[in-house]
Every structure is written in structure tokens, then in C-alpha cells.
């Protein structure tokens, strides 16, 4: 093959390689800028499993959709859940659909064996120096009512804004504990 063709194909391949992370950045920034904000209340997780490497494994309280449109999905299959706000300002899963619902904020989740859903956001990465203190802060506060994950949702896409522990962003809560 002529060298000029190899170089041309290389440039095309390089553009695809850049496009994948660049698209993720663009998508997430767009959701963070324009998405509707929801507070998902966190639940305590198995302490041994909470910190795998340098992220907090997330678990949530209200993972049972209030209503289900159509037949019960098979466990492990995707399901689209509409997200609304309750009287206290926290997120609730109002309805579950087989296809993306129109006109409502929703996320794609997985139907689980217990009749609830597994939400797609499952981890929160943080600075490795802060991990040990963050672990104790999360363990202590996850049992309280004022711990939640702030997520922005736009057109079925989602972006994590921050993890709040005891009413403060995790990084701040860890800073105070020092």
C-alpha cells in the first residue's frame, strides 16, 4: 500500500480514537450544564466493598419504581425509569417503561431479581489521598437522611455532579474531618 494511504488511514483512525473520549467529555459537560438536577438518597453499602481502589461504590435507597408500564421485564434486561422529585426534594423513580418515555426526565437502568432496578451510576471516584477519610465519612453519614448523590439528567443521559455526605460535598466533608 502506498505510504500516503497509510498516513491518511492513520489520521482517520486517530480521529476516531480522539472522538471517543472527546464525545464523552462533550456529552457530560452538556448534561452538567443543562440537565435537571436530582438528589438520589444513598444507602449504606457493605463496608468491605465500599471502597474498591479509589472510588466509593454507590448504593441507593428507593430503587423500586412506583408504577410499571406493561409487562414485568426479565431480570437483567434494560428498563427506562422516569425520575421525579418528592415532597422533601429527593429523587423518586415514578414509573418504569419498556421504551424511553417522552417528555419526562429518565435514565436507563437494569431490572433486578428483587423487582427493583439497578441504577446506572455505581461509583464515585476521588483523590487517592482522601480515600481513607472519605470511607469513614461515608460510612458514618450514609445512615443519615442527608446523604445523597446529585445527578443531572438530560435526554436520558446522566452526569454525576457531586456526592453529598452530611449535607456537604464529600471533598469538603473529608477536609473538615482532617
Amino acid at each position, binding site marked *: 500500500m502506498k505510504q500516503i494511504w497509510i498516513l491518511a*488511514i492513520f489520521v482517520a483512525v486517530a480521529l476516531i480514537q*480522539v472522538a*471517543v*473520549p472527546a464525545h464523552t467529555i462533550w456529552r457530560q459537560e452538556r448534561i452538567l450544564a443543562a440537565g435537571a438536577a436530582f438528589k438520589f438518597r444513598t444507602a449504606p453499602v457493605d463496608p468491605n466493598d465500599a471502597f474498591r481502589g479509589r472510588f466509593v461504590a454507590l448504593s441507593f435507597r428507593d430503587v423500586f419504581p412506583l408504577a410499571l408500564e406493561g409487562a414485568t421485564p426479565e431480570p437483567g434486561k434494560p428498563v427506562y425509569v422516569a425520575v421525579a422529585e418528592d415532597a422533601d426534594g429527593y429523587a423518586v423513580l415514578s414509573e418504569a417503561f419498556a421504551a424511553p418515555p417522552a417528555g419526562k426526565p429518565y435514565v436507563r437502568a437494569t431490572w433486578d431479581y428483587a423487582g427493583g432496578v439497578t441504577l446506572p451510576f455505581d461509583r464515585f471516584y476521588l*483523590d487517592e489521598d482522601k480515600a481513607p477519610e472519605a470511607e469513614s465519612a461515608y460510612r458514618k453519614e450514609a445512615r443519615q437522611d442527608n446523604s445523597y448523590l446529585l445527578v443531572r439528567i438530560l435526554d436520558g443521559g446522566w452526569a454525576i455532579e457531586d456526592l453529598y455526605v452530611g449535607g456537604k460535598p464529600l471533598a469538603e466533608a473529608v477536609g473538615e474531618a482532617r
Partner: protein
Amino acid sequence: MDDRKHVAWLYDQLPALIAEGALTDETAARLRARYGPLEEGAGRRRAIVLFGILGAALIGGGVILLLAHNWEALGRLVRGLLALALLFIAQGLSFWVLARRPASMAWREGAGTLQTMAIGASIALVSQTYHTGGAFEDFLLLWALLALPVAYLLRATLPAILYLCAIAYWASAQTFFARFLPFVPDAFAYWVLLALALPWWGLALRENRHGARSSLFGWALVLTLPVGYALSLQHSAEVLWPLWCCALVAVLYLAGERWQADAPSLRQRPLLIAGALGFGALGLFLSFGDAWRFQAFQALLRGERELFLAHPAEFAIGLLWVVAALALWADALRRGVANAALVGALPVVALAGYAIGDHAPGGAAALFNLYLLIVGVGVLVTGFRTQRLGLVNAGMAVLSALIFCRFFDSDLGFVARGVAFIVVGAGFLAANLVLLRKKGAAVR
């Protein structure tokens, strides 16, 4: 390589030999002409390539670790752009290599390795910055798919090997449905992915059939292929695993015997070695009665019909391997290669095992004992006849392993074992005597 070492030793000896009068100057000159000049650069060139790959991998790995620290102070967008910048630098280096140093293997391998690491690092960093999570196997597959073109364009080995490992890991993580490839039936997913990498091997083989790149890919293939093979045949494996495994082992061995037997060293024969080791392990396992307890042929016909209708793609893949094994076996028989003809019969013996096992469960195991005995003796005799010590040892290894297994097989009574051992031992002595006599006749 070893040859050159011996030539270097010979050249080292020449001056002394001439001084002692054992060789004339003329003979020494003729020897030099026969073996040619010593290539000083060959070893060094290889070292440069290896150091290039190793250096690039270390730098790439170091950058990944630095990024994994998660520099919160830098802010989201800065970290995202940092990931892209890293990728740009690696791509720029590769572009320069393609444009200015396309002939240098060291540059191509090094730049290809660095770019592969940079691709992985940039996706991982962005995913970490935005907490997008996701399954590890999906990350690995995306990374490998993005890096595969680098393997082709730069003719680099590491991205190709990464790809093989990634698709095997991805396949092993798939349980009920394919997430990334919903458009192909589960059973085909691994083979579709594998097909994308095989032309790379074809190109490497055409360049140098026994070269380091071809061999490395071959080893990565034989180590990862069984994972994808098992996953794509998982539904029918409960009853059919002896046949599926025998087909895979036979194809590996026969293909290795067909195309790699003339390689100068063992490490250049990945298919042959993997096939031979697989044959030993599988054959010995199937020589135990317990292995056949649930493999009766009638049960197969009764129970597998529904399974077959539910997973036709899976059976098509398995049968394709059986057909490939039989075709290679027919080729070995036609060429009259004794050891390949013996080992290649494995799938046929497994089928016979199913048929016998239906009437007498112990019969299938007995058949495999007999088969291994024939293979062991056959390979041993072939080794003696062709004066190949490797074959002699392989035959001895099969026989000793078989004897060892039977000695500790509690299914057989002491009397039966005792008689069998005496018969086999007598056979051994007789064979030895015959061989020695023949050899003696040849010497005389």
C-alpha cells in the same frame, strides 16, 4: 541464533587451529566462506526493539498511574483535556514514525505500544473524571477495538496481543446476552471479534512464518482461544464437552504439525505445543471412568435435541471445528505422518466413546486407555525410527502418565491392575528387545 553462537566459537578457534597445523589457511578461508560473516547487529537490533516496547509500556503505565491519582485540584475540564493531549502526543509520535521511519521495527513497535497505552489511559481518565462507571470488560473491549487499527497500520505486536486478551476477557464476562454486539447471536460474538484480528496474523506469517511476531501472536492465540471457545459453546458443553474439547485439541495439534513442525525451536511452535499438551491432559482425563458417567449417547440424543433447537448457532460452530479436525486428520493420513495420524484420531475416538458408553459406561474409559497406549507406543516407535528424541520422549511421557493414572485409579481392583501392569511391563521389555536387536543388526 544458536547457530551463530557456534559459528562465532568456530571462528574463535581458527587461528589456533592454523597455528597448530590442524588446518591450512586455505581451508580456514573456505570455512569462513561457507559460514559467512558474523552478523554483529542481529542481537543488538532485537534488543533495541524489545527495549523500545518495554520503555514505551513503562512510560505509558507510569502515565496511567499518575492519572489514576485523580487530581481533584485540576478541575474537571482540565483533566479531560489532559487526557486528550496525552492521546494527541502519542498519535503525533506514531504519525512521525509512519512518515519518517516506516522501516524501523523498533520505532513502529515502540510507538504502537505507547499509542495503545495512551488510548486506554485517555478513555479511563475521562470515565473517572465524569464518574461514568460501567463494566470493566466493556472498557477493555472498547480500548482494544480502538487500538486494533494501530496494530495493522504500525505493524505493532502489543496492540494485537492486547486485543486477543481483551476479547477473551470480554467473552468470559458475557453470561446471558451480548451488550456491545447485540446484532450477532451470543455464540458468534467472540468469533466475529476474533476474525478482526486474524488478518494481522496472516500478514505477520507471510512476512516471516517463524518470526517473533508470528510466534507471540500464536502463543497469545492458543492461550486465549479456549476461553472464547468454551464461552461460545457453553449451552451444549454439559453433555458434549468431550467432543468439543477433542475437536479443539486435534485442530491445534494437526495445524501445528502441518505448518509449524519445521520451526527451528519449540517456542516457535505454539499451536503444536498447545495441541500436544492439551492432548495429554484431555486424553488422560477421559481415561477415567468418572469422566464418562453422564456422557451416554442415548442421553445425548434424547436431551440434546431441544438444546440444539434452542442454540443452533452454537452447534454449527462446534460441528465446524469437528469438521476442521477431520479434514486436517485426513490430510495427515494422506501425507502419512504417523504421529499426526495417531493424535488426530482423537475426535473419532471420542465419538466412539459416546457410542460405547451408552451400553457400558466403563467401556468408553477403557477405549481411551487403549487409544492412549497405542498413541504412546506409536509415537515412541516413530521417534525411534526417525531418530527424533523429542518424539521418543513425548511417547514415553504419554505412556508413563497413563501408567501413573491407572496405578492410582481406585475404580480398578488390585488384581486387574496387577495383571495389567505385568502385561504392559512385559510388552515394554519385548519392544525394547526387538528395537535393540534391530539396532544391533543395523550396526553390524
